């Protein structure tokens, strides 16, 4: 199937094409899904190398499962987030059994345009956010990342986390409160006081 046609078909159709031997389907699925899994895993693990391993393993399971995929039963992205969540949980458990590692591996994100100062401020804020996220209990962190960073709806998060929707709402709310409390002490460091001053001046 031509590549530009693959760009508009659903994930499920691509997976069927892959299972039927279409060589271009795997690349299209990888381009579409791997960045999402990698971003999610990086935010949960705060370690790029571990997140890459999780991404490769999650995609590997997708390839293995492709011939048995039952159409209409679930969204592929939901299934993949669920696999990635479980793999990250396993990775964290394994990490606890190993000596502690330094938390210097905040997610590497693509460079954004803007002045050097604002870019640095932005980078500081992101690092602070990821460190704060890392202090949350696992389930709260998963719920907050899925809802507010990955932008998923609560019913989809409930499927991924195997919870009820109310439980997801509760986890998200508690996670945000905890994040606010953790980041409150760093407000001045992160330039939020300057922002408030600028808003008042305007």
């Amino acid at each position, binding site marked *: 199937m031509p590549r530009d046609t693959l760009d508009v078909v659903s994930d499920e159709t691509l997976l069927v094409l*892959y*299972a*039927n*031997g*279409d*060589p271009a389907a*795997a*690349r299209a*699925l*990888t381009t579409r899904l*791997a*960045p999402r899994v*990698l*971003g999610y895993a*990086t*935010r949960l693990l705060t370690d790029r190398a571990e997140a*890459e391993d999780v*991404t*490769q393993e999650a*995609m*590997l399971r997708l*390839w*293995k499962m*492709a*011939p048995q995929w039952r159409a209409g039963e679930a969204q592929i992205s939901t299934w993949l987030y669920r696999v990635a969540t479980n793999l990250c949980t396993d990775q964290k458990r394994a990490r606890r059994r190993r000596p502690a590692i330094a938390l210097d591996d905040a*997610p*590497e*994100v*693509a460079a*954004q345009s803007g002045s050097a100062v604002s870019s640095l401020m*932005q980078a500081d*804020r*992101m690092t602070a*956010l*990821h460190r704060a996220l890392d202090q949350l209990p696992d389930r709260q962190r998963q719920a*907050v990342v899925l809802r*507010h*960073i*990955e*932008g998923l709806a609560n019913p989809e998060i409930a499927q991924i986390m195997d919870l009820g929707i109310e439980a997801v709402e509760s986890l998200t709310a508690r996670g*945000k409160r905890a*994040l*606010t409390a953790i*980041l*409150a002490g*760093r*407000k001045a460091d*992160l330039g*939020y006081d300057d922002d408030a001053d600028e808003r008042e001046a305007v």
Partner: protein
Amino acid sequence: MEDDLELDALLAKAGALPVPPSAALTARILADADALQPPARGQLGALRPRIGVLGWLLELAEGLGGGRAVAGLSLAGVTGLFLGVADPTALQSLTALIAGDMTTVGQMDLLPATDILWTEN
């Protein structure tokens, strides 16, 4: 960080920042995909003409599960036809053998009336 608005904005900015996979990771993922990809649908597919009776037959054979499945179905059909047409004497001899009537063993004729298969009317 006094209100949710600032946190929401920070989280939204984090979500907007892409985390692109490295070329090495993409290569690893695609190598796995290549190694695990099932072969293109059926060997018959490459030979299948786009139109015509042969194309239709190959499509049907593939739909039934390939060459082996078609061979099995053909054998089962021929066997069923034989059992339906053949004289039951042979089976009587067989059942007698199983039931213990050993006197008919020497006379068992496995194709006692095959001539009816080629008798012309």
